[in-house]
């Protein structure tokens, strides 16, 4: 492994490092200096790991920055900037993993970190009744970055604060007594090096704007919330700039006020039309998590849970109706899991695969070392670690419901419903540990009568079981209706890790789904 590292350092010195999409700031002194620093640390860590007895080792060096600005009514509540860096070393010693991390970045600490990781693996050797075996990952030296138009960190903080105050003012002018809003920006440089000879440099940006408006009725003590629908994305400041926030704030204020007077839903089985701002989360919980191979083999039994999907179900299970195809990817523009490589160093092209094809379950998501469990030659680039102090585990790539081949509109889906409910925006969500029984809410609910949208409803949730639910899907919107949702905080693993992931979806219609009335007295 050290030969590869030395070659890498030589190529750095000669300015030969390249490949992949060019880094806009690759020539800047700062970035180049970080690359050299990461390479030195990686070399020290990998050499120490090999010397200490590791058969395989990889190291992640991360430099992260974030900004959070939050506003409440007419005041900026908080402006916080944060910067952190560190490295994590993962080693495989006689088929047992060891992991250690450090936040002091110098070669001595990197070496010590590797030795600790090897010691950890040796300490736990007696606990290993199964040995980890890894497939060979092709060595790569590459660079990549999330394409953005405007670096959010280049925008002055006072300008961002003014923008937030303007959003809140618009909501308040539209009659909402309360409005909270925030902007979150993340920039993360991630360097990956492995004993297999890879050295990968990736630069990520994530931007998350959000507002929540509350309307109250002091006479009755009732209140109602409405949040913005825009999800976090892998994007720059243009994501905020191109959205009409003041209009969204006014609309949110109006919606929240209407929710106060909305009609309680009548519980029972009804047809359901879900807007993609709602469906992305249902897709995430029911299809995303149920098709993780580590869950199928019991590796998450103690925490996140197992899954109803069995290894033998590949190619057989009728997961959904024939119109449903769900694809994984790591190349969708704006996708939070979009990357050139996963955290095992696997190229993103392996992450483009069908999970469900025309209703049939096709394949699981896998991290390195897992594909052999089901007789496949390699993983499909589904590994991620939240930060330098986290062991990489199997996590979702972007997972998206494919649009209808036909040009079907939302209105056409609604037109096919005699008695139903239309839901916009995500609300409450909960699902069991085998991903069967779920219950989801939303933000805005409307009755559908004889193919037309009717009155606004309140106290709505839908409850179903994953396979019957997806088999009840009989209508999908076309490509013009496609919308990319997502979250920054999908939790899994122990210690629990957050992962960013996006899910594309189109409006979809489901027949005969149980609608709950969640109104209660206390």
């Amino acid at each position, binding site marked *: 492994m050290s030969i590869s590292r030395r070659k890498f350092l030589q190529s750095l010195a000669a300015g030969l490092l390249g490949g992949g999409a060019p880094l806009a700031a690759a020539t800047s002194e700062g970035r180049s200096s970080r690359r050299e620093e990461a390479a030195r640390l990686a070399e020290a860590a990998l050499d120490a790991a090999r010397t200490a007895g590791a058969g395989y080792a990889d190291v992640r060096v991360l430099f992260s920055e974030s900004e959070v600005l939050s506003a409440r009514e007419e*005041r*900026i*509540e*908080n402006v*916080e*900037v*944060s910067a952190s*860096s*560190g490295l994590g070393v993962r080693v495989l010693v006689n088929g047992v*993993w060891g992991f250690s*991390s450090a*936040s*002091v970045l110098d070669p001595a600490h990197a070496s010590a970190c590797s030795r*600790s990781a090897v010691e*950890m*693996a040796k*300490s*736990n050797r007696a*606990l290993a*009744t*199964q040995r980890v075996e890894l497939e060979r990952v092709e060595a790569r030296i590459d660079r990549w970055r999330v394409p953005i138009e405007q670096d959010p960190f280049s925008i002055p903080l*006072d300008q961002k*604060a*003014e923008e937030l105050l303007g959003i809140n003012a618009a909501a308040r002018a539209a009659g909402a*007594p*309360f409005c909270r809003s925030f902007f979150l920006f993340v920039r993360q440089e991630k360097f990956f090096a492995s004993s297999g000879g890879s050295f990968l440099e990736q630069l990520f940006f994530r931007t998350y704007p959000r507002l929540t408006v509350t309307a*109250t009725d002091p*006479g009755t003590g009732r*209140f109602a919330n409405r949040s913005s629908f825009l999800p976090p994305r892998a994007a720059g400041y243009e994501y905020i700039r191109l959205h009409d926030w003041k209009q969204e704030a006014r609309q949110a204020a109006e919606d929240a006020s209407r929710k106060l007077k909305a009609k309680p839903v009548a519980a029972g089985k009804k047809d359901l039309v879900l807007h993609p701002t709602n469906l992305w989360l249902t897709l995430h919980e029911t299809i995303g998590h149920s098709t993780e191979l580590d869950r199928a083999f*019991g*590796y*998450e*039994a*103690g*925490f996140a*849970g*197992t899954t*109803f999907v069995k290894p033998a179900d590949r190619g057989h299970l009728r997961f959904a109706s024939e119109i449903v195809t769900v694809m994984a990817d790591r190349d969708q523009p704006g996708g939070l899991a979009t990357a050139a490589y996963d955290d095992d160093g696997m190229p993103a092209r392996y992450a483009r695969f069908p999970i469900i094809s025309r209703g049939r379950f096709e394949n699981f998501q896998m991290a390195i070392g897992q594909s052999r469990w089901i007789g496949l030659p390699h993983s499909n680039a589904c590994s991620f670690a939240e930060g330098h*102090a*986290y062991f990489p*585990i199997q996590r979702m790539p972007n997972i998206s419901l494919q649009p209808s081949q036909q040009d079907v509109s939302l209105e056409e889906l609604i037109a096919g419903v005699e008695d139903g409910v239309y839901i916009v925006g995500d609300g*409450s969500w*909960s*699902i*069991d*540990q*085998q*991903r*069967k*029984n779920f*219950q989801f809410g939303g933000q805005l609910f409307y009755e559908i009568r004889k193919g037309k949208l009717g009155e606004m409803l309140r106290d709505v*949730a839908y*409850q179903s079981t994953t396979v019957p639910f997806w088999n009840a899907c009989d209508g999908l919107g076309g490509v013009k209706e496609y919308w990319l949702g997502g979250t920054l905080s999908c939790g899994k693993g*122990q*210690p629990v890790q957050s992962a960013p992931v996006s899910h594309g979806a189109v409006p979809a219609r489901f027949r005969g789904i149980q609608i*709950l009335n*969640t*109104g*209660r*007295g206390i």
Partner: protein
Amino acid sequence: MILSEGEARELGTKLLSYSRAETAVAEISGWSRLNVRLACNTVTTDGEDEGFHCRVESSFGKRRGEAAGNKADPNDLAALVRRSEEVARVSPEDPEFLPPPGAQTYPPAKGYSSEAARLSAKDLAEKGQTVLAAAQAKRVVGAAFLECESSFSAYTATTGLWVFQQATRLQYTVSARTRDGEGAGWAASAAYSPNEISLPVLVERAMEKALRSRHPQPLAPGSYTVLLEPSAVCDLVGMLLFSLHARPADEGRSFLSRPGGKTALGETLFSDLISLRSDPEDAVAPGSIYSTDGLPATPRVWIDQGKLQELIRPRFWAQEKKAPTIPEPTNLLLSGSDRSTEELIQRIDRGVLVTRLWYIRTVDPRTLLLTGLTRDGTFWIEKGKIAHPVNNFRFNESPVTLLKNALALGKPEATVGSEVDDLPARVPALVAKEFTFSSVSQAS
């Protein structure tokens, strides 16, 4: 990275000496963590993490800015202070800004054990053997997460405020599934000291639950008397505790709001069996000695024999309402009795025993209606005995209703919930009537 009080004070003093702001606050913390994870009767992952975190808040007049980093080097700390000042200078004035509090008096920190701080990776590996040996003996598939942490934290301000504490935390979670996948069990606890947590007890409990929960009989959803074991109580009562905020109640956007701008403070909302406290000096589950804004976390009774006594009220809102400042609680203590879980079961004619809850989310903030599921051991109780395992359920219930319907409490014990898992908690099992299971979950 662990600092002694002297080292932390030196660092804090140096940090504040860099400040050119009118006021500055610094929070510094460091930790050393070890973990090992088991599943499928083998080790899966492990880890070691040494970390440091520093947050600086600077203010000029009512302009305020924060900066945070993970480096303890003096140059990095000086840069952090400067960055927080830059942020403050460009931030709009905050009309709710209050300067940091001055020097305070704190209770003694109780949550540190030198024995816990000395635990090594080899010690954790030995504990892992306890789990695997039992799994083999009982012919179940074992899983566990064993974690130990030693940490320090300090809060200091240019106003003279200084507080420091060291803490340790051990958290053991044990799960077991029968080989046919039909039965599942779980047990977990957390403690600051190895003397307050017994891995063999947790192992026995989780594996026995797994073996007893095989072949569940169907039970229809509906309204049942329930016996919630401490973990389930921790989740539901913990979510209630952190909803006891004065400001949203006063503003008319809380389940505690009442028409005409009034609140439920002072109302008897719950059964008179229910008293909910926090006390950083609790002997079993001690909490942090400081809370919001570095204020002391003093003993407090939130609910006294069913009556809502206190609401969390930060300094600004306290000033607005001319009411006392009430910082957030740092632990969770629910009243109980001397009765064992077995004695509680004996008092139930027909009901459902719930080991733990899972994936709990708020459905309606107006009633604090929560939904979630039972998991890892759900049993039918008949005529004072556990009759047989039953299917899992989804519930839709408010903790307000749960505590109103409380019929009996067991002996409080240290526990962790699925959602409320990082707050020191000592709570009992709880029997309540009319708990709403809204649908069946076929998950096992």
